[in-house]
């Protein structure tokens, strides 16, 4: 009956996420006040910061799943690593776009090569490389193993990227809420936390769906292989049945 990757659980989760996005738009674009220094531009932070956080989280999941895959060699971990990296790449792209659109009116430039921006670009390229490995025309187990090894590299880069503003002098400002005394006013903080929650929900929801899509891809591959094998066997038995009936014991 149900010809999609949805289930009751994901429908509920998806509905909550949708409502969350409506709330985020309401708070982010209307209810939350403008910032004293940067004015309305602060509204882009409610997209930029949550996507960055969740993307970092997604890559951490990919690394953990890669390690688990190398230890256990199960399809489940392979699919988790793959799906998480895909969603992380999308979110990191959103981080880059929103950051550039914020940077132009605030800093005066779309892009600059400070430590945070450089490591983010590097991380993005690494993920693209990882996803390229995922598309290699290879035996599935082999590809999974390769991808798991390549995926491990996301960890140091993610960590360096996350701490870049603390370790080095950057144009990018330092952490705002991940510190002991958040320097941010009430409603702005609330909207930011709301954004984090909404994007985290989106991640979980997309993750479940991506996992199922990837799982189905594998099953369809298997089915294709099964049919191909069955056809070859039919061909073989059809063509060879008369001249050489006993194929087994002879060779």
């Amino acid at each position: 009956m149900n010809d999609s990757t949805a289930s009751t659980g994901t429908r509920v989760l998806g509905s909550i996420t949708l409502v969350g996005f409506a709330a985020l738009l309401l708070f982010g674009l209307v209810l939350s006040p403008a910032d004293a220094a940067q004015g309305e531009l602060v509204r882009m932070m409610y997209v930029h910061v949550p996507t960055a956080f969740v993307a970092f989280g997604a890559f951490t999941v990919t690394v953990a799943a890669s390690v688990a895959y190398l230890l256990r060699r199960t399809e489940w971990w392979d699919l988790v690593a793959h799906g998480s990296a895909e969603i992380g790449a999308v979110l990191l792209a959103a981080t880059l776009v929103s950051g550039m659109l914020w940077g132009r009116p605030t800093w005066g430039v779309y892009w600059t090569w400070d430590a945070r921006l450089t490591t983010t670009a590097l991380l993005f390229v690494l993920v693209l490389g990882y996803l390229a490995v995922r598309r290699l025309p290879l035996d599935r187990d082999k590809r999974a193993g390769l991808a798991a090894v390549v995926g491990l590299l996301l960890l140091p880069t993610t960590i360096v990227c996350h701490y870049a503003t603390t370790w080095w002098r950057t144009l990018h400002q330092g952490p705002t809420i991940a510190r002991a005394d958040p320097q941010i006013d009430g409603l702005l903080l609330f909207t930011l936390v709301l954004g984090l929650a909404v994007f985290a929900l989106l991640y979980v929801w997309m993750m479940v769906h991506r996992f199922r899509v990837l799982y189905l891809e594998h099953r369809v591959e298997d089915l294709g292989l099964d049919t191909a094998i069955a056809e070859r066997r039919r061909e073989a038995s059809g063509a060879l049945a008369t001249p050489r009936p006993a194929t087994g014991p002879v060779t």
Partner: protein
Amino acid sequence: MTDGWGYILTCYGLVLAALVVIVARSSQRGRKLARQVPEEQRRWM
């Protein structure tokens, strides 16, 4: 005060549009694949 609404709406618009496109494409692909796989292998139903 700065009026950056052009930037803000572009930012929100781009990000949301990208998310919608990706979710739509993914679910479409899911539907297409799901029809090819026997039901007993889709355990989440």
